[in-house]
Structures are given as C-alpha cells and as structure tokens.
C-alpha cells in the first residue's frame, strides 16, 4: 500500500465507522452471548467427559503410548512422514513448523496489497484453504495412526519351544514399551519417526540392537533403565528383535 492508498483506506474506514453503532451495548451484547456459549460448552464437555487420569508415571516399566494432545497430532504426523527422508529429519520436525510460524508472523509485512476482499485475493485464498486442508489432513491421519501396543507376528519357523516362548515374551515387552509409537513392526505400529523394525534382525546383530536400546539417538528414549531393573524382559526384547529376520 502506498501513501495514497493508506489515506484512502483511513478515510473510507472513518466513514464506515461513523455509520456504525457504539460498542456498548451492541457489540457487548453479541460478545456476552458468545461468552455464555463458550462457558456452557466448556462446562458441558467437562460434565460429559470428565478428566480421567491414566496410570501413574512409571519410568521403569515403560508401558506407554507416546501420544500428544489432539492439537499436536499434525506435528507428530509431519515427523512421521518426514522420517522417510532421514537426512532432513531435524529440519523437518522443527524446521517446517518454524518456517510456517515465521511465514505467519511476517504475513502483514509481505502481503501488503490494498485489497481486502478475499474473493479478489486469489493467492491468499488458495494458500489459506491449502493450509487448512493440510492441517486437517495431518490431524486426521495423526489421529488414525492408532495407539498400538501389541504385535501380531507369528514366530519364525525353526525355533525351539524355549526360543518361541522368548519370542512371544519379547512381543509383549515391545507392546508394553510403546516402541510402536515410533516403529512399524509387521502390520502393527506407526511407520515413523523410527525406521521399521520388521526385518531389524537381518540388518543388525543382537549386540548392536541392545546397545541402540541403551544409547539411542534422539528422539528415541533410552531403555537402559529396563535393562537394569528387569534384565529378563530386556533380554527377551533383544532376542525377539534379532529374530525378526
């Protein structure tokens, strides 16, 4: 907007304002009705759904499903999708949201045309709708990537009975430990942010897997505590993973 357009806007605006009504009581009435609706909605939601509390924190048993509140699903989903391009992960997880925020922050500084009517601002209309569609889609698919905590893979053939028992014990530990919040195993779990573990045994030796579990790279949490407090479970976990050929 150049100086003339600015002055033109201010003049138009003051005319429209003079034709308007006083804030009190006209706008105040609408705002108050809206406030009542907001409060009633919040109270109703509280009465209907309460505020249930999950089981207490237990950093050692790691029975968890790392899931954020619904309004962060889209972030989690970006993380998951971007995981397929490993080199860009840090950039993708924090980088994309940060860039979007900067773009939003500076919007009035780069979109300075005098036109305000949305039907005459095709770029703004398209990018606004696209952003809404993206966030809705990411939230939806983030909500639907389930919160798996079980594995349904059959033990590979050729194991002894004892080995098979360990395999299934390991499956339970994986389910309890929430690995599937980040890893795909067979048909269960999320494909990302971690790599799929369906064939991890063919790629890594048991010792390498164990050391990854104890000293992982972020964002994977460390399971060193599990190894310390219940070595049996940890051993079952490692042997299960190395059986995934």
């Amino acid at each position, binding site marked *: 907007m150049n100086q003339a357009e600015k002055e033109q*806007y*201010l003049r*138009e*605006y003051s005319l*429209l*304002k*003079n*034709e*308007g*009504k*006083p*804030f009190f009581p*006209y*706008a105040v009435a609408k705002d108050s*009705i*809206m406030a009542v609706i*907001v*409060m009633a909605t*919040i109270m109703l*939601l*509280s009465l209907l759904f309460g*505020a249930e*509390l*999950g*089981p*207490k*924190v*237990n*950093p050692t048993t790691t029975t*968890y*499903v*790392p*899931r*954020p*509140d*619904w*309004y962060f699903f889209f972030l989690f989903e970006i*993380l998951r999708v971007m995981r397929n391009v490993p080199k860009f*992960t*840090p*950039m993708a*997880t*924090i*980088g994309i949201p940060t860039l979007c*925020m900067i773009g939003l*922050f500076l*919007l*009035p*500084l780069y*979109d*300075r*045309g*005098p036109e*305000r009517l*949305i039907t005459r601002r095709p770029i703004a*209309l398209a990018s*606004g709708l696209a952003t809404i569609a993206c966030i809705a889609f990411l939230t939806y698919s983030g909500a639907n990537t389930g919160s798996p905590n079980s594995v349904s893979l059959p033990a590979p053939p050729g194991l002894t009975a004892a080995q098979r028992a360990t395999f299934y014990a390991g499956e339970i530990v994986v389910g309890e430990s929430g690995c599937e*919040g980040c890893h795909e195993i067979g048909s269960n779990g999320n494909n990302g942010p971690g790599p799929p573990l369906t064939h991890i045994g063919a790629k890594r030796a048991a010792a390498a897997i164990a050391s990854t579990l104890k000293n992982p790279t972020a*964002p*994977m949490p460390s399971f060193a505590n599990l190894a310390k407090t219940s070595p049996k479970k940890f051993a079952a976990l490692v042997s299960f993973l190395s059986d995934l050929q």
Partner: protein
Amino acid sequence: MPLPKLLNRPAPTTTQQSPNPVEAATEAGLTVVDWIDERTQISQGLRWMMFRKVPKGINWAYTLGSATMFAFLSQAVTGVFLAMYYRPSVTGGAYESIRNINDNVFLGQFVHGMHKWGASVMIILIFLHMARVFFFGAYKYPRELTWIIGVVLLILTLAMGFTGYLLPFDQRSYWATIVGVNINNTAPFLGPYIGDFLRGGPEFGATTLSRFYAIHMMLIPGLMAALIGFHLYLIMKLGISAPPWLKAHEPEPVIETVEV
C-alpha cells in the same frame, strides 16, 4: 459523549436533612467512586472504551476474539483453583494430588475437566479467530502489529498446551512430553539449549516437573495477559476493521447557500 447518569448528578448540598440509610449508603458509594475517579480519571477511559463506535456490518465472526479471551479467563480461574491443590513434586505426589482433586475435592473433577477441555476449546477458538482475521484481510494496514502480537499469542497458547500436558504426571503425559522434548532437541542450532532449559538439566528428572509447572502457571500466563492487554489496546486505538465487502457512502458535498 454522554457521561453515565450516575456520575452526572449535581454537587451535594450541605443543607440536606439526614437521609435514610439506603440513600446514605448510595451516597457513600458514589463518594468513593467520585474520589477514585477524581484521582484516576478512569471514567474518561471507560467511556472512550465503551462508547467508541464499531463500524457498520460487524457480524458474529467478530465475536471470536473475545470468545478466545473468555476461554483464556476461564483457564486462568480454573487454573488457580487447581493450583490450590496441586503439588508439583515427582516424589511427593503430583499424580496423587491430581487423584485427590478428582476423587475428594468438592467439584474437583468438574473444575479439572473444565481446565482440560477449556484448553481444547481455546485452541479451536484461537484458530477460528485467526482464520476470520486472515480471510477478512484484517491484518493489513494499519493493523499489522495486532496480527504479529496475535501470532505470539498463538505460539504461547500452544506452549501452554505442551507444558500443561506433563503436569498430571500419568504415563501418557510423561512419555509424550519426553518425546516432545527430545524432538525439540533435534532442532538445529537452539534445539539442545531449549531441551536443556525445559528439562532443567541434561536428564529428565525431578526439576523438570517443577520447571514445567512454573512455566505453565507463571511465565506464560503472565506474558499472555500482558500481550492480550496490548492486543486489545491496539484494537481499541485503531478500531475494529469493517467487513471488506462494505463500501462507504461518500457524504453529499455540503452546498452552502447564503440568503440575502
């Protein structure tokens, strides 16, 4: 601008007979109001605020900002009540204190539920408000700064959601927060520092919870209250934008005729 009737009465005369108690009480109340107003001149500001004009064609979409503000106020009030019973201690029972709120405190679960669901309602409202401002082009000259402060408010609101999620200290909140902080850690440049700041050290431990609590109930709400105040000041100063589809009628030029 009309002065409210209450303040517009004649100066009291000393020769009145003793008034009845109700009148005396009203009189005393008004004297206090007058006394305060004489020193602060607050009524002037209030009149400027309440009787300013809003342009023609303001519709329901324009209530979304104040709806967001009411959701924020609801969060503040319910949050204060929760803080009366909450103990931000890992060993001393953050989890147990929330259990206690849910199970024993009078209306505890109701207030806790209002705080929890109020967060979602506020997030929805703030996005709707932002969409209204965006599609109406209301962020353009002269309201750029209002928008920029709005974006900071949006980020702070999301940060409230993130820090609040840990406080009940149940399994889901604990592990989701660990993942969240770890994700933060992978960010380029500042990531590790933000991670360390949030955790209160390199490890996720007892200080982390009290840190999240302090951020959630003092740092961010204080910032938000101040910024909302500034946001509202700018809105009043600049006036609420008119709907973009309205065109002003140019006033008829005044033709002065001089009678001889």
